[in-house]
């Protein structure tokens, strides 16, 4: 394998590590980049037991079938993207999932596609995270509608994104954005959060 240091994240030009602080202090919004995640795009028929059980055995958890919901598998987050589409997200240091899924699902009408290289993840959290996201997205992020564990495909500013709200009392979101839009979106969110105070963490 080629040297990992040759890899560049889509936000590498913003030199975020040089701005990173360890404590967020009284910042209303905390932001960071979580790059290089593996994302496997999985398509299949949720009415097919064979599909669901093969997916479960590989992923270590049931695929979430409720709209806009996420689930935790073994080393993976499973995000519902549509009635027959999911993301299985895992960290870079875990074994690749795509081939295992392809093997488990062979012969079925499914599709397994690596997609992680095309995205980066921008984490936005803090007491003012929801107010910040509301500036760029039409979704209702209120607890009663978009509780921790929710996910959704939508638009943030003028970029198509996938939101995943993490567990926790303080609102905490991961926003998956196509790499080419990442710089624009980061700067847009940072501008939107300006009135609340921002901290960048590593």
């Amino acid at each position, binding site marked *: 394998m080629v040297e990992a240091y040759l890899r560049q994240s889509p936000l590498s030009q913003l030199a975020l590590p040089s701005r990173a602080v360890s404590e967020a202090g009284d910042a209303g919004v905390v932001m960071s980049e979580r790059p290089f995640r593996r994302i496997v795009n999985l398509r299949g028929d949720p009415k097919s037991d064979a599909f669901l059980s093969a997916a479960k055995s590989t992923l270590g958890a049931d695929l979430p079938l409720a709209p*806009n919901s996420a689930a935790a598998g073994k080393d993976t987050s499973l995000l519902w993207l549509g009635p027959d589409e999911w993301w299985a997200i895992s960290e870079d240091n875990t074994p690749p999932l795509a081939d295992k899924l392809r093997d488990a699902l062979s012969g079925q009408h499914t599709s397994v596609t690596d997609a992680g290289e095309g995205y980066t993840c921008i984490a936005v959290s803090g007491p003012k995270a929801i107010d910040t996201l509301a500036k760029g997205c039409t979704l209702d992020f209120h607890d009663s509608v978009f509780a921790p564990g929710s996910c959704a495909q939508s638009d943030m500013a003028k970029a198509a994104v996938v939101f995943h709200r993490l567990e926790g009392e303080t609102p905490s979101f991961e926003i998956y954005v196509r790499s080419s839009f990442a710089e624009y979106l980061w700067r847009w969110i940072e501008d939107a959060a300006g009135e609340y105070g921002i901290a960048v963490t590593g």
Partner: protein
Amino acid sequence: MLEINCPYCGPRFETEFSYGGEAHIERPKDSENLSDEEWGEYVFMNSNTKGVFLERWVHTSGCRRWFNVARDTVSYKILAVYETGTEPPELDLRKDV
């Protein structure tokens, strides 16, 4: 701005969707046998209904699914959403318009 209830993702703002024109127009399978007029009718001519209109939308920013909507083109009220390939629900057109 309309709020459209995607049959798969739930209610979302209109900006997440794209419009697809009149619903329930099937692409002719025997286009060879159609006259130019008949083919032109299929490609170019949609109804322009005042009242309840059955139309197609796609959830572009969400699940990318196409689906059908029964919408009153006067009040913009959405009376029903239903999946592609299914029949529209029974609507009392006189009452709903």
